[in-house]
């Protein structure tokens, strides 16, 4: 079976579900709103991160998007109908992942730009320079996409949106805000920590902006591979 019709079908499925469109809007709103608040507060000392502080919140919406898009297949026998239409499971899952990634990437890049403009307007001269700022905007788009894909892969393994969110949300909140602040080292290699290095002006850990995104990409690739493996192995 060719890939394009399968991708088109998955895209129709995503844009005809209101909760999914809603979580994409939430990525933008949450990131921009929390970033603007943080910029105004200016307690954050890292100039770039004070602009992109809200990504920590926006990524929860991106995770919700990736989770919901895949979880909608694991209810009421939807997956059986889907796989009856597209029996090549790898191809189908690749189409699903692409249909998840592209809208998040577009939304994430847009969100990054808006956040940067708002942050520079609020911070003025104390804000990051344009080169650094644009790196942050692109990084914001890529990071959000990788988080959505990580969630999508995990959902295919766990076969449930509730299970995925109840693993990922506490993990992000606790690991990022509690453990992450206390220790560096291993915690820096966790997907959301590694992916957010690109949003900082200064990076003291082992990872730089792009190597950080590469580590996050490895996590997403691992989750997607596990999801594809589980999908191919199990009965639908």
């Amino acid at each position, binding site marked *: 079976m060719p890939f394009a*019709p399968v991708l088109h*079908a998955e895209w129709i*499925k995503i844009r*005809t579900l209101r909760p999914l469109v809603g979580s994409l809007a939430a990525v933008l709103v949450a990131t921009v709103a929390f970033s603007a608040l943080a910029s105004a507060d200016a307690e954050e000392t890292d100039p770039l991160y004070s602009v992109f502080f809200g990504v920590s919140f926006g990524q929860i919406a991106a995770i919700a998007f990736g989770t919901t898009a895949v979880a909608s297949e694991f209810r*009421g026998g939807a997956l059986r109908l889907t796989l*009856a*239409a597209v029996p090549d499971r790898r191809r189908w899952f690749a189409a699903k992942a692409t249909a998840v990634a592209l809208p998040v990437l577009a939304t994430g890049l847009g969100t990054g730009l808006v956040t940067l403009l708002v942050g520079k307007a609020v911070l003025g001269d104390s804000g990051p320079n344009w080169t650094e700022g644009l790196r942050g905007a692109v990084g914001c788009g890529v990071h959000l996409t990788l988080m959505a894909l990580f969630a999508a892969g995990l959902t295919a393994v766990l076969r449930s949106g509730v299970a995925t969110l109840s693993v990922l949300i506490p993990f992000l909140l606790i690991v990022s805000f509690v453990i992450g602040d206390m220790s560096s080292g291993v915690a820096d290699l966790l997907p959301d920590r590694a992916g957010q290095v690109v949003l900082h002006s200064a990076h003291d850990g082992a990872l730089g902006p792009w190597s950080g995104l590469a580590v996050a990409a490895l996590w997403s690739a691992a989750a997607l591979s596990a999801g594809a493996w589980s999908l191919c192995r199990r009965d*639908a």
Partner: protein
Amino acid sequence: MTSIDVRDLTKEYGGRRAVDRLTFGVRPGHVTGFLGPNGAGKSTTMRLVLGLDRPTSGTATIGGRAYTELRDPLRRVGALLDAGAAHGSRSARDHLRALAVSNRIPAHRVDTVLERTGLAAVARRRVRTFSLGMRQRLGIAAALLGDPEVVLLDEPANGLDPEGIVWIRTLLRDLAAQGRAVLVSSHLMNETAAFADHLVIVGRGRLLADAPVREFIHARLRPRVRIRTTDPAALGGLLTRHGHDASQDADGTWTVRHARVDDIGRLVARAGVPVLELTAQEATLEEAYLDLTAAEAEFTAQPQEA
């Protein structure tokens, strides 16, 4: 002409055999009723045919090929498995549109099947607002979307109102008349008798019968004759003398088992017993099925272990 061929199909779940060396065929131009109690392995067999579950051993092919090898499978095979497969937040139309696009089915087919299943008026409503009967119709619409030569429907009459049941009966007969191979599972005997012309009966994963409906009933149960008279005593004596197995019902009519009206009619006419009513009674599919399962239970009964 495409048919379904199931050969030695076996599926085990953790040591329990859901489907046990099942072999049967579904021929084009017929509605094949797939009968058996709940848990007999009907749905599992359908999932195996569609390549959704992997068989432990054996094969299921469609037109000689495994389902997973078909190109644009919805154009060859249409299936209804779960009425809940459509997402509640999506409209019926969008649900079908995504399916059509995935298999490069022309967009106008979406409207055609919505019309055919009587959902055109509610096509833009979200599936969440549908009754079970409407969801069932949407599932059937999805099965018919690619104008397939082979149709598999798992309990399609579930949740349908009386009008819907008449509709599906007609639909199934039409599909077969157009030369399609139609497999319809059910646990309702008399409903199946109303549309099927061939039967595949399973019990505990095994094939119990594979025969045309009429043949199956006649092989298991002989016809009966119902007769009413003004002189029950004379009639009773006459029937007994001629070795008929007859009994009188509470309302005064007599039932003669294993007999034909031609014989009984002549017999009572010659004896001059007045007749008020003489009717041939065909055995029903339900009776034949129960006769089969009773025989099967006796045949397979194992000594109980303490």
